[in-house]
């Protein structure tokens, strides 16, 4: 499928570059509808190898790249459910998003996240799936999940550990603080920092360079450089599902959904 126009995302392939645009208001929160369209994208990505060398993922929204999981939907769908039903629903969602992210991670295409504004939680996990992150200098990166009594559930810790040193991984997880693009580049999360409003242009320029190299060599290099931490990803699903049934999680979700605070992602 060379083109797709969905409610939450769209993509097109032109001149060897697949561009996936995220456009679900307010900030590309990942809920069931986005997941379904990401699954269509993952299938298309498997078939895109003959038409494209590079995939660029970006947001069309001024608010940012992606604010993570749709916590309002999560709260609405899980509040008050018996433990086993809650686990089953969460496990289904998490397993499906892992399948999508693993497909993007393992794609022979080189993948670039062009990040601007907010890149939090599941949004950061989506960016971490990509081979390169090009960030607008106004971008911010954060794993705020512990405030909810959870760990990141879309593959965040294994992929963060794959790329960064433990000092940064623990700092991000245990404090829930956000990093700006300059800091993110200094610690090795971001490969290039763009001027304000220029991340997509820079990502496209990077894609043009990457296209010049032999596809088989590029795919072999990627496989060698970036193994998928499969065992840790499976562990993450188990830990996440177990934690999700804690009373603190429902309370944390409720607090977030009902919050009128200026920085509701902080505990």
């Amino acid at each position, binding site marked *: 499928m060379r083109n797709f126009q969905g409610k939450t995302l769209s993509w097109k392939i032109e001149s060897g570059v697949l561009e996936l645009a995220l456009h679900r208001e307010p*900030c590309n929160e990942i809920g069931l509808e986005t997941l379904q369209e990401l699954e269509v994208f993952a299938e298309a990505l498997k078939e895109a190898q003959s038409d494209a060398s590079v995939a660029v993922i970006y947001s069309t929204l001024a*608010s*940012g790249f992606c604010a993570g999981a749709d916590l309002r939907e999560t709260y609405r769908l899980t509040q008050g459910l018996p433990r086993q039903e809650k686990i089953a629903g969460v496990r289904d969602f998490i397993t499906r998003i892992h399948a999508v992210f693993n497909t993007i991670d393992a794609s022979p295409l080189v993948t670039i996240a062009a990040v601007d*504004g*907010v890149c939090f939680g599941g949004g950061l996990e989506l960016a971490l799936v990509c081979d390169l992150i090009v960030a607008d*200098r*106004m*971008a*911010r990166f*954060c794993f705020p999940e512990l405030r909810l009594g959870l760990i990141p559930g879309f593959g965040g810790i294994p992929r963060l550990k794959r790329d960064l040193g433990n000092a940064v991984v623990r700092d991000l997880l245990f*404090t*829930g*603080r*956000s990093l*700006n693009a*300059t*800091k993110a580049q200094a610690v090795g999360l971001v490969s290039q920092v763009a001027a304000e409003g220029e991340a997509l242009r820079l990502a496209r320029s990077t894609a043009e360079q990457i296209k010049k190299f032999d596809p088989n060599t590029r795919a072999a290099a990627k496989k060698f450089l970036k193994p998928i931490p499969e065992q840790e990803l499976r562990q993450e699903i188990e830990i996440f599902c177990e934690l999700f049934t804690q009373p603190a999680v429902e309370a944390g979700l409720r607090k977030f959904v009902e919050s009128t*605070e*200026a*920085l*509701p*992602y*902080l505990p």
Partner: protein
Amino acid sequence: MPTLDQTIDEILKLAANSFNVPREQLAADDDFFQKLNINSLQALELLTRLENHFTVELPDYEFQGVTSFRGLAERIQARL
């Protein structure tokens, strides 16, 4: 190192430019959420602009409970 008043002045200029509010309408002890009429995402934008402008790292948790431009300046001064 700049004085606290100099830092406050720089913050007020930056906030005025970034959020299209006349500089003369902003004062050190104003509640910046109200004066700039900003939401949570815009608060993050302000934090990023402050970090970029002053070349400092400002952990979000240090800003919990800070509502005035003076309070922002004090946190920044502590890291200059």
